[in-house]
């Protein structure tokens, strides 16, 4: 590397100094030992068990969703296994009044935030009722346009700020999403207006086939927040307690009027990108897969809780059975939804339909009766 000729300026060193600041925050190591007692979040035994239960439940939901998709009983599905700590522990740090703007892989967070599971299935099946958010559930449907949710989160947060509501807007994207213009704009606007928002990146190492290394020259994604003036943090996304701790702190800062926070969580998606024909063996090795599987969020949290005497195999089986039962019920409920009609869709275009839609409604009423 070229040495600085002039000791007044050393931009290379400025970069290195910033990069070195980003050490990954961890509370539990891969075996579930506490490595950072100071950061241990203040969670009751019941809360710890609840968080573990949600992670186990969601792993089952992922497995069931994959098999339902293979049977043709679900449509679009983006697998979540490997990302439970990032997804569920961050959501666990929120309050009901906080508003989530998810990406397409963030269905678990909005389900745990209150969206009925059968609606998540309807969303997957391409039925508009899946996106009809019930009153009092503070989520937006999963965003398809990568990055769009980031700048919108700044808007939601500004809304809370203007109304003096003590609530936070939380949004998620991936390592790939952190390359979008909207991503930077979201951080920048939120910082400029000091709004109560949390920007969360689940860096699962790949954007479809594109490895993290091709997305950016930045050593961490976390450091991107610095440029926008946001407190920014790199966290072990396979460690539920670390994810919870940093998100909780970000929320407290936000509701105290101290502005937005940016969080990068390091994790991995075990499955394919989506169930629509992606083949991970084309772009990643089984060595990398198994390296990450060793850091599994369930294994370490299970060990931690077992050592504390809070978790047993029976408890886990109980959760698994409950999950299976509830999933079955939700599928039934989704099956019972009325067949989606074009005429229904015509009705949700405007508050009042113009002439063309009225005419077309007549045409489609006829077409759908055949």
């Amino acid at each position, binding site marked *: 590397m070229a040495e600085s000729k002039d000791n007044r300026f050393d931009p290379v060193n400025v970069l290195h100094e910033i990069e070195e600041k980003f050490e990954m925050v961890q509370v539990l190591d891969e075996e579930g030992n506490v490595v950072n007692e100071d950061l241990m979040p203040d969670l009751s035994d019941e809360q710890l068990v609840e968080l573990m239960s949600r992670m186990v439940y969601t792993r089952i939901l992922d497995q069931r969703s994959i098999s339902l998709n293979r049977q043709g009983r679900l449509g679009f599905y983006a697998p979540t296994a490997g990302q439970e700590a990032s997804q569920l522990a961050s959501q666990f740090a929120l309050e009901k009044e906080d508003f989530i703007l998810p990406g397409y892989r963030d269905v678990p967070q909005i389900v745990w935030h209150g969206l009925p599971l059968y609606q998540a299935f309807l969303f997957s099946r391409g039925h508009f009722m899946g996106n009809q958010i019930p009153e009092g559930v503070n989520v937006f449907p999963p965003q398809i346009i990568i990055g769009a949710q980031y700048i919108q989160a700044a808007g939601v947060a500004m809304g809370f700020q203007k109304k003096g509501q003590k609530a936070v807007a939380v949004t998620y994207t991936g390592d790939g999403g952190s390359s979008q213009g909207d991503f930077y704009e979201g951080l920048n606007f939120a910082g400029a207006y000091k709004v109560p928002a949390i920007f969360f990146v689940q860096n699962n190492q790949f954007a479809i086939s594109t490895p993290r290394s091709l997305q950016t020259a930045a050593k961490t994604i976390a450091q991107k927040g610095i440029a926008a003036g946001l407190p920014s943090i790199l966290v072990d996304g396979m460690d539920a307690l670390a994810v919870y701790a940093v998100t909780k702190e970000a929320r407290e800062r936000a509701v105290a009027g101290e502005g937005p926070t940016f969080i990068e969580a390091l994790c991995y998606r075990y499955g394919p990108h989506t169930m629509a024909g992606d083949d991970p063996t084309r772009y990643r090795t089984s060595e990398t897969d198994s390296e990450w599987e060793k850091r599994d969020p369930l294994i370490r949290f299970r060990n931690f809780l077992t050592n504390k005497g809070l978790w047993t195999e029976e408890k886990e089986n109980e959760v698994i059975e409950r999950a299976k039962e509830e999933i079955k019920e939700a599928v039934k409920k989704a099956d019972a939804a009325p067949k*989606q*009609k074009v005429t229904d869709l015509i009705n949700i275009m405007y508050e009042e339909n113009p002439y063309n839609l009225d005419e077309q409604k007549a045409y489609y009423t006829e077409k759908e009766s055949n």
Partner: protein
Amino acid sequence: MAQMTMIQAITDALRCELKDDENVLVFGEDVGVNGGVFRATEGLQKEFGVDRVFDTPLAESGIGGLAVGLAMTGFRPVPEIQFFGFVFEVMDSISGQLARMRFRTGGSFNAPVTIRSPFGGGVHTPEMHADSLELLMTSTPGVKVVIPSTPYDAKGLLISSIRDNDPVVFLEHMKLYRSFRGEVPEESYTIPLGKADVKREGTDISIIAYGAMVHEALKAAEELEKEGKSAEVIDLRTVQPLDIETLIASVEKTGRAMVVQEAQKQAGIAANVVAEITERAILSLDAPVLRVTAPDTVYPFSQAETVWLPNYKDVLATAKKVLEF
């Protein structure tokens, strides 16, 4: 001649042009190692190296801007937008920048860029993947817009698009990617842009279509034949600019015409075709020129798409109206 699917024909065209012209560059999200999410660029990075065929960070406006800059430095970029539903992210690069490059530099620069992108309904994608947004492009003076309906056309038109010295948006209907095979020459060949193709000759009515709707029109024409009516099916192939000559010659012969498009009625090429025909050939017409289109809603959630999309029965019903007028 080889039998190829449309996607194979597209890969083949890209291979021909990468071989033929070292200034051709192929890039986009997941086009490298993965060969594209539909495998349109399968094997190309291996064959031509990461210098010529490369993955980009996830940003469509970035992909567009890169293409603009590379065009300025003498390259012939062939970027891929993973799904055309994401075109809004790259609108400025296409409509604001590429389309005006020749114009605003008084001809000192030009933009030999071909933007390839899958679009089109019927394959159960999530929201914002399947929309027919060609009107956004055709209403931008400065770009050409090509939509093939067969493997043979896809290869010849893509090669012509890449060789064209102005920006071309090349839209590939997802449903046609693998739905059938056709004969495709192994060697390089071109099909001129701006030339429609008479896919079936007839004397009673001209059915004008493009993309996947060409096949619905052909099916309807077969049905009409059973009823003793002879339909001519014209595949526009290039929707901007239109092939006025072929359209008018056909209408003058048949005296009746209709236009079929997958896009919504308010968002289509069809209105423009109707206007051109009535302006130029009103005295040859024995009936109004009618349209078959999708309804004016947002592209539907996938459960409703098969009904929402126009099909050959819709074409047939409208053809009868025109014939019986």
